[in-house]
Every structure is written in C-alpha cells, then in structure tokens.
C-alpha cells in the first residue's frame, strides 16, 4: 500500500504544472515643470546722447515665449533733476537705435529676446527734449526697466 502511494505521488509530481497568477500592470503619470529663467543685463547708468544696450544671457524659456524689456516712463519721458536744485528738472526721452523710433508710454518696449537670439542686444539712447533755459549743473535721475516673459 505504501509503495503504491509513493508511485502515485511521484507520477503526480511528474505531471505537475506551475500555475502563475495572472499579471496585472498599472501606470502612473509623472509630471514636472521646469520654470522659465533668464538673465538680463541693464546699464548701471545712462549718459544722455550716448548709445547704451540691454543684454540677455542664459535664456531658458518655453519656445513660444519671449522676454520683453520696457522702459517705465512717466508719460513719454523720464525726469532728471538738478543735483544742487532739484526743483529744476529736464525731460529725457528714449529712442531705439535699430529703427529710430521713440520709446513712449504707449509703446514702452525697447525690444525682446527669445531662445533663438540670446546674443542680440537692445540698443537705444537717451536725449533731452529741450535744454533751453536749463539751470547749469549736473542732472541725475533713474530709469526703471520692466522685464516680462510672455
């Protein structure tokens, strides 16, 4: 009886088959956003009637975007003030060198940069509208550049 049982068990093992559980897979979406980044170089100071430039570097932005640089004007001018008597001011306007057009409150953009033209510069210069009657002395003022990526 024991011999018969062993023989039957051995035969069962010979014909045994491995049964696998049915494989299942699932997927998850991985999301990541690399934000736009760029470096803009603005002039420390601007001297009237001398050309000056805004430059860009390391522009890493979406291909459908550009970095725009505006001059923040009070109307169409930036005021500069006599260092010894600030009650005396002169109005400075800005002009694009590329096409000779003025940078105004309605059109304040000097130019733009994209990933394709990182090596270009935005060239412009500052000039005084009217110096007649200006009080003698040094005049100073500040320019604010508005930078937007869109």
């Amino acid at each position, binding site marked *: 009886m024991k011999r018969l049982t062993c023989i039957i068990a051995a035969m069962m093992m010979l014909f045994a088959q491995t049964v696998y559980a049915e494989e299942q897979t699932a997927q998850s979406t991985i999301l990541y956003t690399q*934000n736009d*980044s760029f470096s803009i170089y603005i002039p*420390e100071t601007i001297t009237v009637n001398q050309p000056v430039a805004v430059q860009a570097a390391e522009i890493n932005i979406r291909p459908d975007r550009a970095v725009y640089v505006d001059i923040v004007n009070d109307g169409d001018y930036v005021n500069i003030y006599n260092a010894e008597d600030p009650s005396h001011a002169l109005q400075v306007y800005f002009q694009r060198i590329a096409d000779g057009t003025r940078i105004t409150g309605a059109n304040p953009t000097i130019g733009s940069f994209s990933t394709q033209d990182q090596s270009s510069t935005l060239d412009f210069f500052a000039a005084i509208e009217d110096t007649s009657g200006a009080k003698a002395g040094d005049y100073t003022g*500040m*320019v604010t550049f508005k*930078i937007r990526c869109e």
Partner: protein
Amino acid sequence: MKTRIGIVLGIAVIMVALVLAHGNKPQHINTGVKWSEEAAQKDTGYIAINGFSEIHFQADTKAQDFEFHNSEKNNCYMDVALALADGTELFKIHSLAAGYGVHKVLLNQELPKGEYEDCSLSIQCYSSADHTQMNGTALSVDVYVR
C-alpha cells in the same frame, strides 16, 4: 578637591549655556546669505538681473521657499520687494549685497490658494561704493499659491 570639582562643574555649565544659546539663535529670513564661494570679476557698467516668470508659494503660511540672489558680478546692493497687482507688498529684502541671496522669505500676510497675475518684483539698486541709487528693474511675475 571640592574646589576642583566646583571649577569643572562651572566650566561645564558655561559650555552648555553657550551651546544652547547658539542653538536657539533665531534663523534670519528676508536677509541675505553667501550665495557662492567663487570669486567673480565685476561687470563694469551693467547690473545682472536673474529673472523668472513664476513664483510658487504655499497657501495659508507666511514662511515660504523663495530663491533670489544678487550676482557676485554686480557693483550694487539690491532692495527686492514683491507686490500684488493692486500694490500690496508681500515681502521686502533690504540691502542684498552682491554675491548674496535668500532661500526663504517671510510674507507680510498669508495668501489663500489661487493664481495672482501681474505681480511685480521690484529690484532697486544702489551703488556699493557710495550707496547712490542706480537704475532699477520691475520683474513682472505670476504668483501661484497651492
């Protein structure tokens, strides 16, 4: 013998006090820390502005992760302030020296979840030599609060 024990205990108490005082030193936010140990040649005539178009904050908390630095190439200090489109100031960083930056800021107020468009990061620059004001920048950014 008692004198020696007293001296040793006294020194130990002082050392523990010093360690605790250093450990409890409040962490400064909205002030700059050294950004890079690399020396850089100063750029003559230009101010480098590190720009971006988005800022991401967490809702309902004033302490935020925010990285900004004044390039070591610059010859100026920077006052940096973030304001909403209606002019409400969210934070201000004073006198950030060239080569220094921040990793965190403390907002003036908590912000609820939402998208805040047309915010402005103003960067006022002052000469490192004589602190006279130089040209500045207003960086247009959108703030996303989650």
